[in-house]
């Protein structure tokens, strides 16, 4: 059904970004504008987007329709026909719902967190733009529009990671994020192009791709599926393109929350779900995705156990959780994967916001042991953080349990026991490192007397709201064996996801097992860290503490070798070989010319001799050819 409302979901934050940007310029050039203006524009615009999405969601729920909005024809060249069109089906509205809601919460939180910052207006302009880009990505009707949003979130993440551009590390981190993402984006673009050539004459909207899938050759489709997933690897920080994610922590904490919870990193999972009709027939690629997810999940969980930076631990946990999502979508359980995206958005946003609150209270201290050494009393943040930690560890009935357990059951049901075991082990590690973080930051005995630090309402209220989500979001997909209705699975029935149909006893055993694994992780963390002497912090040492030396390996393999190659091209290939060839050939012509010029020496006798030789040659030729 056509509607004119869809565009407003994007336009609201986009207009917010433009207004904030304009006001910010006015503010620094002419007259100072109060932070209140920026924060009002910045928080109202995502709210409008949320309200519009909610109204569409309710209509959709009542009438069972999907929305479409065709804005204009963007490109129409021969077979290539790209419409600027938006699609509001169950998947995109589901995604847009929590993106706008969690995004809105983070915007409100940012008002408190960024208070008094010089670039307050700029921050909100970027922030709104980030949300707008993500919503373009979500609501796109064809892969080209999706790619606009895809690049948009890349640019905004770059701008926000180097928000404090005065520090060199921040700029390097932003460059790293951008460049690593470019690698993935290149894969994505190649995937879209491959898809276009595989399809032939279609107008490239998701509907027509799905309808014409049968015409394409399976090899090209596999290639397209693989290349599109390379894009997802970059955006969703999976092996081997994950290295940017921990470094992206250089930005202010609300950005980390936004990148990790609502925007950007979930784009890869969303894209795979969007192309579910493609991946559903590509079993091998799906399995590959699932394995990449499982390995990423485990690697990130390992690294997180040895990190001391509160935000980096959370960053690695995001990567780990994204790995779970890719296990689910790779194995064909699209709605299960998206359900984990959904619950993860709540508890990860909350965890980051809680971490931000702690960092704020301790004057931008991020080392967990130093935070513990100067413990501040933060009751609300401590409470909500605990909820988030429990949720991510997978303890029932918190939301993380339902989504994670469904993924574990899915892997088990598909017979991918290796993936299942890796995911199970990751669950243990997750519980361990998250509770390590919690115990050190909030529980372990500290020599400094707790001092109460006031936390602004704009920080605490979003935290409490999200805490409700982190607790209760799981009930939306309450498992059938407990009499649940699988609301999310039904809502996303368009994805043709596989469903879990294990016997009840197996399912119970799996649940008990995963809870036991999580509980043992918590127990180990409790034993080790609940009474940890925070004055003797752990060092980031060893293989795990050094993140498996992946950054160093990449540095040697890609950065250094590329530098060597470019030096070689510059100094040897260009200067010696190409320049040498051109100069030598030019000099050669000059020399030949000089030699030829010697014939014209104005010497009569010389000319006469030449004439004689020439005539002799002519006569000899005639003699031979005539055979006289």
């Amino acid at each position, binding site marked *: 059904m056509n509607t004119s409302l869809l565009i407003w979901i994007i336009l609201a934050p986009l207009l917010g970004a433009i207004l904030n940007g304009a006001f910010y310029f006015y503010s620094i050039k002419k007259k100072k504008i109060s932070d209140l203006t920026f924060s009002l524009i910045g928080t109202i615009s995502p709210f409008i987007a949320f309200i519009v999405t909610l109204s569409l969601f309710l209509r959709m729920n009542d009438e069972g329709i999907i929305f479409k909005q065709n804005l204009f024809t963007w490109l129409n060249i021969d077979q290539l026909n790209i419409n600027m069109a938006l699609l509001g089906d169950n998947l995109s509205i589901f995604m847009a719902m929590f993106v706008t809601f969690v995004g809105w919460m983070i915007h409100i939180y940012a008002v408190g967190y960024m208070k008094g910052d010089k670039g307050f207006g700029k921050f909100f302009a970027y922030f709104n733009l980030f949300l707008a880009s993500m919503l373009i990505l979500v609501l796109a009707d064809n892969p080209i529009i999706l790619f606009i949003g895809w690049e948009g979130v890349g640019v905004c993440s770059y701008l926000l990671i180097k928000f404090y551009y005065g520090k060199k590390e921040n700029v390097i981190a932003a460059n790293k994020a951008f460049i690593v993402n470019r690698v993935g984006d290149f894969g994505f673009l190649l995937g879209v192009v491959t898809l276009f050539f595989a399809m032939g004459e279609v107008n490239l909207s998701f509907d027509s791709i799905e309808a014409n899938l049968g015409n394409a050759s399976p090899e090209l489709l596999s290639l397209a599926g693989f290349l599109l997933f390379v894009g997802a690897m970059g955006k969703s920080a999976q092996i081997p393109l994950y290295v940017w994610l921990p470094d992206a922590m250089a930005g202010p904490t609300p950005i980390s929350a936004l990148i990790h919870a609502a925007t950007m990193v979930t784009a890869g999972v969303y894209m795979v779900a969007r192309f579910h009709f493609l991946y559903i027939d590509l079993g091998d690629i799906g399995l590959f995705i699932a394995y990449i997810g499982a390995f990423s999940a485990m690697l990130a969980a390992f690294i997180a156990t040895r990190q001391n930076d509160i935000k980096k631990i959370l960053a690695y946990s995001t990567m780990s959780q994204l790995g779970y999502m890719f296990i689910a979508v790779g194995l064909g359980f699209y709605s299960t994967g998206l359900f984990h995206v959904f619950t993860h958005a709540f508890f990860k946003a909350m965890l980051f916001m809680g971490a931000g609150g702690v960092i704020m209270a301790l004057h931008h201290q991020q080392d967990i042991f130093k935070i513990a050494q100067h413990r501040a009393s933060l009751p609300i943040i401590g409470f909500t953080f605990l909820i988030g930690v429990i949720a991510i560890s997978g303890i029932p009935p918190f939301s993380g349990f339902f989504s994670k357990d469904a993924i574990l059951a899915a892997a088990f049901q598909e017979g991918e026991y290796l993936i299942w075991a890796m995911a199970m082990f990751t669950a243990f590690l997750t519980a361990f490192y998250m509770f390590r973080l919690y115990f050190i930051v909030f529980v372990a005995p500290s020599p400094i007397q707790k001092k109460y630090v006031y936390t602004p309402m704009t920080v605490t209220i979003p935290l409490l709201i999200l805490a409700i989500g982190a607790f209760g979001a799981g009930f939306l997909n309450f498992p059938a064996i407990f009499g649940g209705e699988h609301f999310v699975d039904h809502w996303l029935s368009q994805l043709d996801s596989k469903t879990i149909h294990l016997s009840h006893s197996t399912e119970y055993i799996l649940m008990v097992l995963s809870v036991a694994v999580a509980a043992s992780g918590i127990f180990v963390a409790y034993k080790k860290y609940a009474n940890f002497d925070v004055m003797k912090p752990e060092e980031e040492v060893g293989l795990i503490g050094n993140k498996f030396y992946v950054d160093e390996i990449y540095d040697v393999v890609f950065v250094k070798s590329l530098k060597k190659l470019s030096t070689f091209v510059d100094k040897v290939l260009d200067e010696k070989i190409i320049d040498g060839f051109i100069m030598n050939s030019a000099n050669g012509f000059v020399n030949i010319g000089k030699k030829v010029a010697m014939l014209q020496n104005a010497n009569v006798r010389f000319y006469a001799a030449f004439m*004689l030789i020439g005539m002799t040659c002519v006569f000899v030729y005639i003699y031979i050819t005539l055979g006289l």
Partner: protein
Amino acid sequence: MISVTSLAFVSMILFSIGAIGVISRRNIFVIYMSLEMMLNGVNLFLVTFARYHFNMDPQIITIMVIAIAAAEAAIFLSVIILLFRSKKSLDTDIFNTLTQGEKS
């Protein structure tokens, strides 16, 4: 009677001596003399074979060549006089004004 072969050889030798003279000598008069020698070598050749084949056509051509050579000599000598007036020399290597740059 002198054989055709020996006459042909004589004419060839005359021609060759002329050719070598044209190439190797620097004095313009000697060059002219050598040219005339080449012409006469060719004339002798023509006459020899005219006699051998009892065909009179080459004889006519030979007379023509001698007549034209005489006319040519008049022009040639006047040209030599003009050349001498310009450079006060009869050395052909001095007449190289068409070379680029280094003028001697």
